[in-house]
């Protein structure tokens, strides 16, 4: 199952868990399943069913470019990070 790394401000929702294993073959499923287990988490990550602007999701070392549709490999690590712009 993908391993989701929980940013510190959300750990109050995960009872302090820093890494959560949760099923799903794309990001939408992963976030829905997270929400099932830890209600309130989706609102922190999403706005109108899309990833919040300003937030980047790193899946298996690559920044997700397909948003909620991005595939999540069974062994993937998922990180929520500040979005990065370049010069």
């Amino acid at each position, binding site marked *: 199952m993908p391993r989701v790394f929980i*940013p510190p401000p959300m750990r109050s929702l995960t009872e302090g868990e820093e890494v959560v294993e949760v099923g799903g073959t794309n990001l939408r499923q992963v976030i829905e399943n997270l929400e099932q287990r830890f209600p309130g988490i989706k609102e922190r990550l999403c706005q109108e069913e899309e990833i919040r602007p300003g937030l980047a999701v790193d899946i298996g070392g690559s920044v997700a470019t397909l948003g909620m549709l991005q595939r999540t490999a069974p062994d993937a690590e998922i990180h929520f990070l500040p*979005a990065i712009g*370049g010069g």
Partner: protein
Amino acid sequence: MATADKPKYKVIGTRPVRHDGADKVTGRAKYGADIKLTGMLYGATLRSPHAHAKIKSIDTSKAEALAGVRAVVTSADLPEQGDRIVELGEGAANMRHLTANVLARGKVLYKGHAIAAVAADNIHIAEEAIKLIKVEYELLPPVLDVRKAMSAESPVLNDDIRTESVGSAPASKDSKPTNIAKHFLFEKGDIAAGFAKADVIVEREFDTSMVHQGYIEPHNATVFWNTDGKITVWLSTQGSFSVRQQTAELLKVAISNVKVVPTEIGGGFGGKISVYLPPVAAMLSKKSGRPVKLVMSRTSVFEATGPTPGSHMKVKLGATKDGKLVAGEAWIAFEAGAYTGSPIGPACMCVFACYDLPNGRVEGFDVCVNKPRTNAYRAPGSTHVAFATETLINEICEKIDIDPADFRIKNAAKEGVRRVDGPVYARVGMVETVEAIKNSEHYKAPLEGKHRGRGIASGFWFNCGLKSAASATVNPDGTVSLLEGSTDIGGSRTGIAMQLAEALGITAEEVTPTVGDTDSVGYCDVTGGSRVTFATGIAAIEAAKDIQRQLIARAAMIWDVDASKVSYSDGGLHGPAGKHLSFKEIAAKLHGTGGAVIGRGTSSEATQGGAFGTHCVDVEVDVDLGKVQILRYTAAQDCGTAIHPSYVEGQIQGGAVQGIGWALNEEYWYDEKGEMRNATYLDYRIPTCYDVPMIDTIIVEVPDPQHPYGVRGVGEVPICPPPAAIANAIYDAVGVRMHDLPMSPPKLLAEILKKES
């Protein structure tokens, strides 16, 4: 320097003359300010003389009455935006802030903040009209220091900003507004246990001043709002699609009503992404019915575009006596400027990114102050933190008596290492760049002479992928016309054309690249993040593959064989029984075999691995004046695969010299009223060619597996190491450690005198 098993390329790695070269050495190339349209009016902008004030009233009547004035606009002419956050390709923007930055609404938040604009028959009339606009202000105390801005007593700039974080609960609208727009926290391992294992711990505080990208071409925009509602924008920009979206959102018109025609662009470095002039010129055009051109003055470019933040940082590192890093901690506050949006996120993610740090904690703050809203500048945020970390690394090396190159190699980030912010590195080239420096003639050469010193430092940038599109049409003479949408700041169209040529087996000269407007080419994200040669390159390669597929079908038709029996390689088609058609031969047969062949390609999923660089510098310090001369400079960088080595070298050299400027003399110098007192090239001192030596480059090639030819972006990384490398060299020369950028003569002299007494 290349890896041993480097693939054989025909075009990649050669140095053709760039396709836009002839126009640029003869003065024919058209940049934004060169646009001239029939009936065009010239605009001028009224800007705030105050750093922080409420606007009580604006009276434009006298300006409107001046002969030759055709239109006047204020923020009242732009639609209300409400609380909308919009993703703009390379970052999200709060539209309320974006529109207020374009034309102040209710408040001015920095000196130079645009308030109103005029379009007139010529620039002189427009400038006279500006003086006739009367604005009544209620002055507010300016907030200029990042730490003071964070205190509870500080005046608050924006009444709609509350602290946000990744994954934080949305703040209640009833809570008190603050200047701290963002707060990020990253943790890895056990920080206390880590420091407990350390034999040596160093902790220092660092300050850096706000600095500007300093591109030589001022911002510009020429806009015509036609009677059918179609708006055409000509300008120099790093992203025509981003300008289209920002302009449409700011004017609240459909994206399809805005066409952006990118001109040649005179430098950007991250500063020509945000929109300042197009919506204003658009409204002036709508009101006057004529095309309107706006061009910023150099002073406005400094005062009112998007420099990179000043910062205050506290960084602590611990290592064992045998030279292993065990823990690191960083506290970083960035001046966002008037509105949120500093690169504090990447700064937090970069601060320890060069190293395998088992235990780390990084906290960062994005803080509003009465200075222009900051924007991206070459590896945004990474140079600040490299200055801190890389000088601490050398301090540790001195304490435990280990060569700074060896220490870096021993602790380098490499494949499989987890960054403090979480992700794990794929194949990267940090070790290779330090080794390249360690083995360089420069590093091995003895440095003699009084008050001379040598320093090294490393730097990191992520490099991004994002979205690109390209199309390519085969011409009957066996050449290809390539159309892509990445505005070309430094020769990228040639780098992209070379990848297409390589994929088709033709020469770079046989490809004619054009940067298209937003109506003629598929969506491309901005030219930034060192992404264009990578991602638009992939799109061009995909277009080449699409051409190959179509040509295979044509050849199969000509030879009357099944397409599966035809292949494309070495610049031609191969069929059964030795049948062969060169690219040129098949190109000549297109008209009779079904007409045009147009290849299309996009790139959206590929994201780059990071890039590293390590620099070595020799300096000489005039200890009586505190002035530093750069004697020798060598920069090594992992470029994956260098497509056009001359332009790879050029990026590294240019980035290094920008970093030298940042290190020694560049700064926004504010008086207590919040006025930038050095908003000219005379007193904002970017290096001249008399300030720097030749910049030697070592191209390290550790191919990025995510790109067919192994490209890694080049542009960002070279600005990161210079300030730290120079600080380390200054220490080697005169024994003082500098923690404050720029390391200008008065500051360095004060430290030298302190040490002597």
